[in-house]
């Protein structure tokens, strides 16, 4: 079960300036709970054990095991896994709310595992912020004071922080509620407060720990759209934890799938659906409507000599669903062209195999 990092260059909706230097770079990260946890990542033998064996042998639980990934500037990076997969521990390790056992955690060129208490607080005050599943609001403070809390901690003056907080309250669509108390708001609105609090400090990176799991489906959809909107407006780097694949596919530029503390696959949504790394991921993405996720690149076939090559042209990153009508309407196969180069062709056959296959759950 080696993690697969499929490299497919140039994809739709790629963050504008992926100049190569990641914002967060995680290498060989381990988090082990239990007595003498340090010895586990150091010992090759213990590393090789499954969770259960490790528990029996040492009484330790490995929540995060040898995880490596980079988060690029401006992207939404989703970590997905079922409960117990270690994803919440992972995100807490990234801000050292939970102390990692081993590995490197480089943030903007600085290994934050070396940061002392003061430096870490400074980073948390200015560079990171986090949105929690159960909101973590202060019930004795009004909305605006909750939003301003992070600024207050920094030591900003009351007038200034209130002004800044009110702007953010406006941004997340809570204008008019700034003087309410959290328990007077619905769950969705409380999470907007949580979001506003995270945004108020103007951080570089936002961490979301299953922020919408506690919400109703309809409100969850609203909030997802809200995150997409905010991402467009403020363009922050976001690390988003979820157990919901459709949420991951909807929000994530790239998705990391975790299981039992290990990373199983990391890639874009269409890579996960088009080329699952193993049966676990395949089982996971089985019910995803493939036409919504796969692009033409995944279904095109090489042009054969007897193919007519005067059909319409489409790019390789067009989603199947959006191409369906065009392909079916054309009486000749559609050419998939990138930078003037013919990559392959897509005919009715290919489209129908995906679209019709959806019903069968293929």
């Amino acid at each position, binding site marked *: 079960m080696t993690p697969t990092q499929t490299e497919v260059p140039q994809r739709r909706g790629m963050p504008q300036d992926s100049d190569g230097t990641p914002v967060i770079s995680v290498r060989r990260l381990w988090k082990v709970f239990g007595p003498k946890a340090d010895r586990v990542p150091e010992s090759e033998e213990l590393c090789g054990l499954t969770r259960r064996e490790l528990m029996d042998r040492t009484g330790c639980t490995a929540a995060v095991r040898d995880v490596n990934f980079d988060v690029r500037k401006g992207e939404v990076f989703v970590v997905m896994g079922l409960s117990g997969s270690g994803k919440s521990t992972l995100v807490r390790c990234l801000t050292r709310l939970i102390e990692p056992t081993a590995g490197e955690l480089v943030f903007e060129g600085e290994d934050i595992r070396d940061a002392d208490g003061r430096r870490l607080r400074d980073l948390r005050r200015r560079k990171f912020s986090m949105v929690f599943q159960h909101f973590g609001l202060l019930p*004795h403070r009004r909305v605006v004071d909750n939003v301003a809390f992070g600024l207050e*901690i920094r030591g900003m003056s009351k007038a200034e922080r209130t002004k800044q907080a009110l702007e953010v309250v406006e941004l997340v669509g809570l204008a008019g509620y700034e003087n309410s108390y959290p328990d007077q708001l619905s769950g969705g609105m409380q999470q907007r407060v949580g979001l506003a609090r995270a945004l108020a400090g103007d951080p570089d990176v936002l*961490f979301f720990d299953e922020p919408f799991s506690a919400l109703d489906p309809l409100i969850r959809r609203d909030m997802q759209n809200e995150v997409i909107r905010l991402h467009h407006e403020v363009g922050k780097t976001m690390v988003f934890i979820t157990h919901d694949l459709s949420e991951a596919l909807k929000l994530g530029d790239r998705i990391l799938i975790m299981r039992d503390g290990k990373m199983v696959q990391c890639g874009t949504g269409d890579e996960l659906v088009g080329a699952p790394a193993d049966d676990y991921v395949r089982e996971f993405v089985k019910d995803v409507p493939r036409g919504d996720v796969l692009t033409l690149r995944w279904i095109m076939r090489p042009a054969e000599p007897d193919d007519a090559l005067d059909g319409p042209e489409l790019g390789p990153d067009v989603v199947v669903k959006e191409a369906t009508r065009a392909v079916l309407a054309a009486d000749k196969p559609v050419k998939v062209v990138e930078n003037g180069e013919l990559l392959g062709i897509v005919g009715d056959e290919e489209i129908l195999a995906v679209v019709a296959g959806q019903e069968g759950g293929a």
Partner: protein
Amino acid sequence: MAVALEKSAPLTGVRKISRRAVVAAILVAWLVLFAIFRGKQTLTLAAADLTDVHRWFNDVNDSIGANRNSNPLFLYFFNEIRLVIDNLVTFIQDLISQPSAGRPVPQIGWLGVVGIAGYVSWAVGNWRVALLAVAGFTFLGLQGLWQESMDTLALTVSAVFVALLFAIPLGVWAGLSDRVNRILTPFLDFMQTMPTFVYLAPLTLFFLIGGASATIATVIYAAPPAIRITAHAIRSVPETTVEAADSLGATRRQALLKVLLPMSKRTVVMGVNQSIMAALAMVTIAALIDAPGLGKTVVQALQSLDVGTAFNAGLAIVVMAIVLDRVTTAASAREEAARRSGSRFLTWRRPLLAAGGVVTAVLVYLSHTYVWAAEFPGEGGIGSSIASTADTATTWAQDNLSGITNAFRDGITTGLLNPFQSLLTDSPWWLVGVVLIALGAVLGGWRAGATAAVCVGLLVGTGVWSDAMTTLASTVVATVLVMVLGVVFGVWMGRSLLVDRMLRPTLDAAQVMPPFVYLVPFLALFGATRFTAIVAAIVYAAPVAIKIIADGVRAVPETTVEAATSTGCNTWQIITKVQLPMSRSALTLATNQGLIYVLSMVVVGGLVGAGALGYDVVAGFSQGQLYGKGLAAGLAIVLLGVMFDRITQAAARRVSA
């Protein structure tokens, strides 16, 4: 322990059936051996007889008395503490209760105190409790018990002040640190398990008889609930909230001041309430070691069987308890109410508070300056009419109800209490000891058995074995009756929300009242007998047991009851086959609490003819040559408490495992 549990787990099916049989076998064996050995080696000791241990205690007491002013430990430690506490108490007494600084009256007279009480109640609570406070305090004056009430208040206030001074920081610390919590918990457990009044005796050894000892005893008694509740409040702040503050870069100090403390304020105020109520209860009991105040009036009246006066003073204690309870409860609820009521009211609040402050200051000045505002006017006419009414009612009850009450009393006494008591006291000590150890081991495991063995050994050592057995008999009988009441009312309350709503306030009120007060009406009804003490103990302990059982029954999942109903169970079957078995751990906990509460009434019962250990303790306070015996008796009560607490707790753990 965990290992032992795991090992026994697969066997429980077999063990459960056999355990009942083993208990039955032990009891049968006891009866048989009792018949053979009856009256031998019973370790009886006449009331005035002493053992070597008691004489040794007396000697220790004498030598401490002799060296009080020369031994460095006393000179620089105990005496200093006593001095500080004494000064604090005297200071507050000078303010509100005792004549001071050459004046015939205290610095602040009744008008000032009533004004302050009303103002403070309004400021921390609301205007309704302020009215209650004013009315309550005025009533105390009308009862003719102003000075006694103020003495009680002064002791309560100073004890609570000192207790909170330690309790809140300790509680916060225990809330923040798991290690501190682990260290404190057993101490708090022990302080709360210990029958309430027992540590009065050892304290007098170090701090002499009087207000200082009373205050220190009260501090010891009043601090644990405040520590516990504060720690609990800090701990129950949701983890996400603390994590959120961390993730925003809050320092520990910021997290404490801006998140943890504000979020636990309300619960901490409830802790203060608990602490005040505990203090009031203890201050009245501390009359046994010559603490001034209402308790003393009650004790003296009880000793001369003057029901009317005792009732009047008891009523004053109740009034004060109600006022203090309501005000602090309102204070804990205020926070939210004020926040919700909108800003308009808040802007008026400051000037109103200032105005109220001025009025209060004027009242205090008046009461400092003029005699009419300093000494409560009138002769306490209401008090004497209350007393005579109570006397009349008592006489009437004794004349007209004595048939019923005596029949009831004699029925329980001869039917239940006497046989059981003679079984305990007339059995050889080693037989009872073996039975106790065996029961402990069978019900609570080998550890409980070992604890029982140690306690039995020490009980024999105290030299008051026979008295301990008499007390044990009353305690067990009272506990059985408590459990009967607990199961009947608990199940009733647990099954019906309506009944719960009707009964719960009464039970809450009963728990608020200082235990002393219960004695008075029962003394009137049943006279000074063992039975009176038992009934008072039952009334004191039953509310706790009822509430625990009601909560246990209520906690049985709705769906389980529904499933039982759908299989066709009738009500009786649901209760006996579903609800009671599923609330077994609540039943065990109720037994535990019931026993501890009953035991803590033993000393109080000693005042009204319960005899045995309670009497020994009370007599020890008043007669120098019995001091050692009283101390030993107090120790015996503690040993009984520890033994039964360990056994029932171990049994409870077993049930829930």
